[in-house]
């Protein structure tokens, strides 16, 4: 574990380099292999006549940028949700927040015939909020209140409900399957940068705010009573965290569909590196999330070449075993 201040700074710098390197790989590697120097050239002296330049600028640059932003957003959302629910197995996908956002977006497309990206985004936020509040209310029922296991059960149930609603709508309206399939499986390929730009101001604001609440989250981690007795406005902090989660997860889904497991596993890797001090855990999570999603997106291009694995499937392949490991660790600890 990185203990001293200087080793943590070195860790941050190393991760920054790793992310930059992966972005370059993402620009250069794929069906058409392009040299690193050419990738650099696109950024410095772009020439639309050159077909390789065109590939990078139109498709790969968008993928890299989207993977970078969404990776950061999902990892931070995961760190926040695990802290808020005090549950190491929580993440936006497991708690049904992704499924809620997808259901609302698919509803907007198939029933309301909405086509603007901004409208999708708002429906994504709305769906994430409905699912988040739903999980909160369902799991607070009963006398022992909001226990970790009830949060997970409520999340799984709501997730299943939203997914079957979504499938139900597709059965009724088969023509929409092609348009919405990508939201369900999660994909970065073929996404337009404009999709990201609609959501970007919200995501960036939420990411920046998250990086400033680390100290308050440290206090919150000791429980509501202790946090209150240390003078913290616990209710306000919970609302802030809840809103940030909804923006980060709902916004991510609006851009790439459901990409699971990043929010689950990244906070654990970050804590393994820097311990439970959210002033460090949050920036480490952000960079690790970006690295993981960009890396997964590169891998997805080669695994079943010449086809591509959808990114949501790719992260599930990586995250599934990790989830089992975490669950097992939790069981043996008790």
């Amino acid at each position: 574990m990185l203990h001293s201040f200087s080793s943590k700074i070195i860790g941050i710098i190393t991760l920054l380099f790793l992310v930059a390197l992966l972005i370059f790989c993402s620009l250069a590697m794929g069906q058409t292999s392009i040299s690193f120097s050419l990738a650099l050239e696109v950024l410095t002296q772009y020439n639309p006549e050159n077909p390789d330049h065109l590939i990078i600028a139109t498709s790969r640059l968008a993928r890299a940028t989207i993977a970078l932003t969404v990776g950061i957003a999902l990892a931070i959302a995961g760190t926040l949700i695990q802290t808020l629910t005090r549950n190491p197995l929580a993440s936006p996908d497991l708690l049904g927040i992704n499924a809620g956002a997808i259901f609302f977006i698919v509803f907007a497309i198939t029933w309301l015939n909405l086509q603007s990206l901004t409208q999708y985004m708002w429906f994504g936020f709305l769906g994430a909020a409905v699912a988040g509040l739903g999980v909160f209310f369902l799991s607070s029922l009963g006398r022992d209140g909001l226990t970790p296991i009830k949060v997970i059960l409520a999340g799984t149930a709501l997730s299943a409900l939203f997914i079957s609603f979504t499938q139900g709508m597709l059965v009724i309206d088969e023509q929409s399957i092609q348009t919405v399939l990508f939201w369900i499986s999660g994909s970065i390929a073929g996404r337009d940068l404009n999709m990201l730009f609609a959501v970007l101001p919200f995501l960036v604001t939420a990411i920046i705010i998250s990086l400033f609440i680390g100290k308050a989250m440290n206090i919150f981690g000791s429980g509501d009573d202790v946090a209150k007795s240390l003078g913290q406005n616990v209710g306000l902090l919970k609302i802030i965290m809840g809103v940030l989660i909804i923006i980060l997860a709902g916004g991510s889904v609006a851009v790439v569909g459901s990409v699971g497991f990043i929010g689950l596993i990244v906070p654990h890797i970050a804590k393994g590196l820097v311990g439970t001090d959210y002033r460090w855990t949050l920036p480490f999570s952000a960079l690790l999330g970006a690295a993981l999603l960009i890396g997964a997106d590169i891998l997805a291009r080669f695994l079943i070449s010449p086809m591509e694995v959808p990114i949501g499937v790719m992260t599930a392949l990586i995250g599934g075993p990790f989830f089992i490991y975490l669950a097992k660790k939790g069981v043996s600890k008790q």
Partner: protein
Amino acid sequence: MNGLQTKKLTLKYGDQPIIENLDFDIPIEKITVLVGANGSGKSTLLRSLARLLNPTSGEIFIDTQKLQDISTKQIAKKLAILPQGPVAPEGITVHQLVKQGRYPHQKWFQQWSKEDEELVEKALIATQLLPLKDRQVDALSGGQRQRAWIAMTLAQETPIILLDEPTTYLDMTHQIELLDFLFDLNREYKRTIVMVLHDLNLACRYADNLVAIHDKKVAVQGTPEEIVTTEMVKEIFNLDALIKADPYFGTPLCIPKGKGRRVK
């Protein structure tokens, strides 16, 4: 300085009244111990004194100020509470936990000051945790862990400290060690201490002011030697007991009647 005071205080969980119409004072710079049967509302009362629970009606005063009118942060500078069985976040070290005690004294942008560091170190020394400061709280024994939490409330530097059953889960040695420590804290540093204890005998030994909670109010309050009698124990705990003077301390000693082996 008037310590803590309640006026016509009523506390409810849902519709169920726990404390009704209570007027009572907690003297300053003394050790006050709340006792009572299970479910008598002593923990609830303690929590309300720290505003972890809002009164249904009535008021609580701290230094003649209404508790409701003070910001959470201001309260945290006057009064620290250690709730029952707190759970530290996974992986947090003793040092990190104790540092949290400085939170109410800091602004969010403010850097860690030299004064903060000194007070944290003082709290670690007082609780004999300095050699263990880099250990994880999860890895400590029950007694050490409880001391780590108390070190955190010490670093908070409040004139009043409330503790909800601080001796639960501790063996006898650690119970005495902890209570001795709180006793010194009161006698040497004049901190007002209010705690809930289950063991009436230990309560009699350490309390300057014993408060018995029964039937939604304070049934009796005073020094243990004034108030602890066979009748009192019968009324509060519904237990038949003999009260003798402790051969060591002279404080009341409660010997419950009942069954068991008899060797004389």
